[in-house]
């Protein structure tokens, strides 16, 4: 139920609405929960609403964990 699918914003339409695309399919989505959404942003869409921008993983958050994991598994991270 909490499934959310990444969409790219094609156009901001105003009044809390935007045109977005995922896997070649375009649909109108709401941006009430993400008013800062802009054209070109990749956003997670749940139940017709953009709920967050998808950004690169934070290196400081995950970098050390991956290092530990690869060290434990006996190899150097690539």
């Amino acid at each position, binding site marked *: 139920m909490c499934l959310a699918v990444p969409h790219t914003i094609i156009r901001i339409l105003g009044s809390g609405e935007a045109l977005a695309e995922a896997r070649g399919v375009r649909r109108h989505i709401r941006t009430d929960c993400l008013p800062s959404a802009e054209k070109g942003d990749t956003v997670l869409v749940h139940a017709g609403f953009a709920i967050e921008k998808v950004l690169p993983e*934070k290196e400081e958050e995950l970098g050390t964990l991956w290092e530990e994991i690869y060290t434990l598994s006996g190899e150097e991270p690539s």
Partner: protein
Amino acid sequence: MTSLSPAKACLEAIEKWQAPLEKPLKIMEVCGTHTMAIARHALKQLLPPGIVLVSGPGCPVCVTHQKDLEHALEMARNPEILLTTYGDMLRVPAYRSSLLEERARGASVTVVTSAMEALELASKEPKKKVIFLGVGFETTAPATAAAILRARERKISNFFVLSLHKRVPPVLRYLASRENLQIRGFLLPGHVATILGELPFGFLGEDFHLASAIAGFEREDILLGMAALLRQMARGEFRLRNVYSRSVRPEGNPEARKLMEEVFESAPALWRGLGTLEDSGLVLQKNYHNFDAARIFPAPSTMPKEDPLEKLCRCGDILMGRLAPHQCPLFGTSCTPLHPLGPCMVSGEGSCAAAWKYEKNASRAAADFSLAREAE
């Protein structure tokens, strides 16, 4: 240069971290999307035998109580009402019927994919009272709140919401405090956390010394989350780890929360199989009572008697991680996806539906649970 894929490296690390720990290591996920991803990628079978992965009450459809559904059915039978709902809810059995059956008998029940779609229907059909059945956790509740705010702005007075929305942190606290469940860690729902942020989950480590990790939904995301949990257990350092930072900011989504807090307030809620949990529901605030279907269209005074076969349904135990789907006497016999008796089989994200679809070989799951039960 490394030859190990990230998934394989996680599995190796999990193997090493779990080795010295006392078994069984019962880990609960509380998100239907995790349930399905774990089953689809056969992750239970890939993990070391001492790790028992169980699905908690993470499917909002599965935890919707029969009494609340009877209330919705009563509304649907009213010829003035058009009931709108997400498709997942149609086949969920109440005591004697479902929305699908009521529709077959002539009730107006329409599937929508967004609360805004329900609002548009209300705008197009001003003579109908359009009720939106609001189910879902904190991921979904902001969308319902936005629709209500928009209805007020557009002065649409024939749009109402029956809010069955539920909150995840209170049910986590309830499960964490039940020592007999023997849960050692929680794989936390990535999209609920996208809205709430990290803070509301910190208590799992701080108050209960349980491992906790917010994870995404790809195979590598879940394995990384599992590795983060095992690392906490191995080190005895129980601090929440967010391994889904591409979507979950530490502060969550304040705009979405603002919408939710404007329209809703916490209240006790009835969970299927778990009973009433304080502060675990979201009801409409006083300023929005004119949109509140629960107040305007009261619940039926008497409830139909339960189907005797349904008394055998063990969804409650399954939602608490006490039983595996295969251990329910109805699983695969009287209760199948075509003829579901319990909500865990109805919902595409339910534990029983996932087990039916993906876990043809039930022996591993059953063995896991025997191990967990021996320990209890």
